[in-house]
């Protein structure tokens, strides 16, 4: 099953050269995809096109077999949720619970059903104890987890995270990434994650890494494929490499294939027995 199918997408910003031209991308349901590229490569624009926040010039976008058209927009959006970069600019409610409620209110969920749904969503991201807090008493990482809960409460099939960790401190970032891992474990194939990032270590958490440059798809594959075969390309694009690859490349004898950090650790430990 395809979660998202993009065919021949074309888009340009006003007074600028086309960003996307004949762009194609298919994302399988249940995948965890990292969409990477430098600033201005088009990755955030792509997310906004998928959500219909920007109007494409041409091409077709299908979300779970539902073509994204003006009539279908509301229905298609019900299948998707998005967490944005700036934790402050997406906090609609006056308190954590109110913020989670906002989407439910829009979907006209009956008032008496809301508390249970809100609590369940907040529990999933580990923020249930903060239900009555106001946003400015929360850290950036906590706000992003609330944003994630607000999305989860609507039970989407696809969650897009647009550089959701870029403005966070290391603790906040780690907590958000851990929450994503937990989510993926809990929901499995029922949840498609699309994570927009320029952090290669974050990207290495995904099942599939898609690299964009100026609206073009330049690399696409598993982390192993992208980081192994594409290492020079990534360096040329100024994107850098995950920590484990940096270390591997500096070793006297390199591991036989791509290893993530945990695997590299294990490999070295068995090597030295």
């Amino acid at each position, binding site marked *: 099953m395809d979660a998202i199918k993009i065919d021949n997408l074309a888009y340009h910003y006003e007074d600028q050269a086309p960003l996307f031209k004949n762009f194609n991308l298919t994302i399988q349901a249940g995948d965890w995809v990292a969409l990477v590229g430098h600033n201005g490569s088009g990755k955030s624009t792509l997310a*906004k096109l998928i*959500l219909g*926040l920007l109007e494409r010039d041409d091409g077709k976008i299908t979300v779970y077999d539902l073509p994204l058209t003006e009539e279908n927009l*509301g229905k298609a*959006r*019900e299948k*998707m*949720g*998005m967490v*944005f970069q*700036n934790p*402050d*600019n*997406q*906090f*609609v*409610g*006056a*308190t954590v*619970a*109110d913020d989670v*409620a*906002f*989407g*439910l*209110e*829009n*979907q*006209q*969920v*009956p*008032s008496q059903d*809301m*508390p249970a749904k*809100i609590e369940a969503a907040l529990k999933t991201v580990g923020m249930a104890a903060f239900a*009555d*807090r*106001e*946003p*400015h008493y929360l850290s950036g990482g906590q706000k992003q987890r609330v944003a994630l809960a*607000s*999305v989860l409460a*609507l039970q989407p099939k696809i969650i897009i995270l647009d550089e959701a960790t870029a403005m966070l401190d290391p603790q906040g970032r780690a907590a958000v990434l851990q929450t994503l891992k937990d989510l993926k474990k809990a929901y499995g194939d029922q949840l498609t994650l699309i994570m927009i990032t320029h952090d290669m270590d974050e990207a290495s958490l995904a099942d599939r890494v898609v690299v964009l440059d100026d609206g073009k798809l330049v690399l696409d594959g598993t982390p192993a494929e992208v980081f192994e075969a594409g290492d020079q390309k990534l360096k040329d694009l100024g994107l850098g490499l995950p920590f484990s690859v940096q270390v591997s490349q500096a070793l006297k004898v390199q591991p036989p294939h791509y290893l993530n950090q945990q695997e590299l650790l294990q490999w070295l430990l068995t090597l030295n027995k």
Partner: protein
Amino acid sequence: MNKIVIGRYLPGDGWVYRLDPRTKILITFIYVLALVFTNNWVPYVWATAFLILVLALTKQPLALYWSGLKPILWLIIFTVVLQIFFTPGSPVLWHWGFLRVTTPGVVNAVYVVIRFVLIILMSTVLTLTTPPTSIATALESLLGPLKKVRVPVAELALMLSIALRFVPLLLDETQKIMNAQKSRGMSFSSGGPIKRAKAVIPMLVPLFVGALQRALDLANAMEVRGFQDANQRTHYRVLKYGHEDYQAAAVTAVFVVVFALLVLHFG
């Protein structure tokens, strides 16, 4: 930016917190209205007593209210000066040119200050104990009848709650931009009026650009979470009058009746 108390919500568990926001809005409204009808110290003592009761029922430290009054001290002083120097009447206690201090002026000034402080404190209780969204929801409910004459009450209420939500953020941002431009040598205190007005531009432009960016981001976030029509939404915070509200209504009724009697008797 922790100094600002007026307009800020502070979580707590006092009795006032348990009241329906509509009750609080109505009581505040009645209280403010009542104060307009008197210029005698006896009703003011009664009104002050009522306020002290309300403050006590919020279970917040009195120091908090005091620090809330401090930023508007200059406004109070300004009002006092106006009242003292520009109220005509006799006897004249002191005069110099067109300035004169009269007994009615001094008396007026005292009442204005008391009235001002009472109103500010009562409104502070409302905002301090009621989350902004609840105020918005309550206004939507209280103003509900206006929907019939095509006033977009739901939209206005939502706009109000979002505006209130962004106030602390924008205050914070103002401080940040001010610090940044001060570090680049900005100064408000030198030059003529035109130069001073110009000095505000480096503050206003970034603030405006930032607010616009926030607005665009927020619009996207709301749209993605399915916002379409303010009228076709359910509400998480359902307003229901409880027994505290009946108690509050009774206490307020006693206050109003006694206040009215005092006003009738003392003027």
